[in-house]
């Protein structure tokens, strides 16, 4: 469903991705792990067009995204990116809810204005989504009246309201207080169990182990190792994987 071919990305002089190739099948759950700055977030953001890349191709459902002029992207390029974004939902580390809108307004904003869904229908869908994540009581609250965990759950609902075919989670629990991590992971688990194609960058190793079909280990912009969770966590083949796991599991 998502095909990444020969992806190159530079940050100024730094050559981060040196030709990554990676394919994701429909319904797969891929967890990306690796030290901070290893490129796992950037990789996810490239798929959604939030990061530009200089070389290579990313195709989502056969919609091809090439390297584009980042200063003056052409109309067609912008439209291609938008088409991909309509199929791929994103959940950010910082939630990024719209602070001037209520929970309900946050969720129906894009369906009504981008997909032109009738607002009664959009509200109905939004309320059932809120019920699924168990915060329908907060529909009329503003984001700053919610806890971090609640905000992140709303952010997930907001992305789901666009009926995406795949979801990208960019360290969804990294800015949460520890007691709220569980509720967010539970929502993601629920989503995965329904068969959603899911890509997650995370530092939650237990969660990764439990949920992943494949674990991808990133380091310095390279994919070090790809494998089933059991193999990666109990029997890593690469030295860089071992060093990273040692460091993170000791904590």
């Amino acid at each position, binding site marked *: 469903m998502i095909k990444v071919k020969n992806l190159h990305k530079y940050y100024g002089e730094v050559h981060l991705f040196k030709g990554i190739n990676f394919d994701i099948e429909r319904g797969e759950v891929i967890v990306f792990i690796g030290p901070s700055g290893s490129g796992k977030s950037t990789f996810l953001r490239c798929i959604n067009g*939030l990061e530009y890349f200089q070389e290579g191709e990313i195709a989502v459902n056969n919609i091809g995204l090439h390297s584009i002029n980042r200063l*003056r992207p052409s109309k067609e390029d912008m439209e291609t990116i*938008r088409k991909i*974004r309509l199929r791929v939902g994103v959940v*950010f580390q910082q939630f990024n809810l*719209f602070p001037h809108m209520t929970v309900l307004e946050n969720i129906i904003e*894009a369906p009504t*204005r*981008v997909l032109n869904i009738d607002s009664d229908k959009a509200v109905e869908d939004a309320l059932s989504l809120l019920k699924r994540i168990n915060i329908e009581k907060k529909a009329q609250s*503003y984001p700053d009246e919610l806890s971090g965990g609640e905000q992140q759950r709303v952010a997930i609902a907001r992305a789901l309201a666009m009926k995406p075919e795949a979801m990208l989670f960019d360290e969804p629990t990294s800015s949460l207080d520890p007691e709220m991590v569980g509720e967010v992971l539970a929502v993601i688990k629920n989503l995965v169990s329904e068969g959603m194609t899911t890509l997650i960058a995370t530092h939650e190793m237990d969660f990764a182990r439990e949920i992943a079909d494949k674990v991808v280990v990133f380091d310095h912009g390279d994919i070090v190792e790809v494998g089933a969770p059991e193999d990666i966590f109990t029997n890593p083949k690469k030295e860089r994987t071992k060093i990273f796991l040692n460091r993170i599991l000791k904590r």
Partner: protein
Amino acid sequence: MKKILRILSLLTVLIIILYWTVPSKSDISPIEKIKKRGYLLWGSDAEGGAPYVFPDPKNPSKLIGFEVDLANAIARELGVEARQSQNAWDSLLPALKRGDFDIAMNGIEITAQREAEVLFSMPYYIYTEQLVVRKNDTQIKNINDLKGKKVGTLSGAVAQDILMKIGGVDVKVYSGQVEPYEDLAIGRLDAVLLDLPIAAYYAKPNPKLKYTGHPVGEGFYGIAIKKENKEFKNKIDEIFIKLLKSGELKKIYKKWDMWDKTQENLFQQIKTSEGFVSLQESKKAPLYTFFPNLLKGAGITILISVSSMALAITLGLILTVLRIYGRTPLSSVAAAYIEIYRGTPLLIQLYILYYGLPNIGISLNPLTAAFIGLGMNYAAYESELYRAGINAVPKGQMEAALSLGMSQSLAVKRIIMPQAIRIAFPGITNDFIALFKDSSLVSVIAMVELTKTYSILAATTLRFFELGLIVAFLYFAMSYPLSLLARRLEEKLMGHKR
């Protein structure tokens, strides 16, 4: 090269914006035009004061003065009414040339220089220059004693030329006729040389001042008419001869105590005297008589401030969006606009808009010019406030909006701007109050708003203090509720954080 392009595109935008205000030109003669319109528009500066044109202290919404009487007589002969059009004295002739009024009559001395620019009617008054000094002064006997002295006069008046020609005189130029005498009385000046009618009204009643020497430099006041309106000038001359023969002119001068031997060269003698207002009387008029005028001025101040702020807020928003999200030619135009408007004085912008544009065929009425001038200037400042607001919205907001499939323009409209405006709001409120007070600057383009009303009334009555307090209070009474309202709006926006 790039800079020139920027300036050119800015000018283009400016001209397009102004295009709709261009009045259509007609070929009908001025006399027909006046008759059709039903009134004669005559330009003068009521701030110049008595005895020419000034507000009646008993009823300040009415203008009186010998030139008001003259204008009424002329208009009557034309079969219409007379209406005064307020304009700063120094710019009466440019305003006449741009067609703001039919004639300019306000103690305008006939000089060769001016005759090159406009037509003059036959003289309607022979003026002389009177030297005034402090009562205890014994040194200055006539204008030959002025070397090395500080002498006050009016900007652009013939007296100024006379003083310049003497040489070695420290000439202090004023824009109003009250201030030189005030400064003379308190010792900032050694003498004042001005037209006799001015001295008669302002200096003669002042116990601290006295006339010295005989009047000098005989000259003529004439009515200025647009150069191409020869036929109209002949008509005015005809009317003058009629008024002169009937003795009506003489009667008017007698009424204003402006009669002197010199005038006999022009007129025969007839005697009457009625309705003359002296400075003493002006000083005694109760304060409430000035309220209708002041309130009218305040109304215009509000009208100008509110309308130009609305323009500034809208135009500022467009500029910001173009600057931040627009593509290169547009974003550079917006950036250049902002820098040029912030980097040049508002006063100059107003002058260019009002007196400069007629040179390229665009003539705005004062209200439009004030609205556009203030609005376009403040738009540059509002734009910077919006920009600061946009920069303060976290980057993640745009990313979240885009990731939901919104186009950039939808994201700006729905997600970024609502948050940016909330952040910019206190600054915008602050600017509104500043604009409110800056609106007094538009008096240079012939708008009589509150400050201008004040200076006109104060110049005639010399009551700078009481009237000043009242006007300051009026400004405060308007701006304070405004800040309260703004604060409540702000609380409503921020209080719930939205």
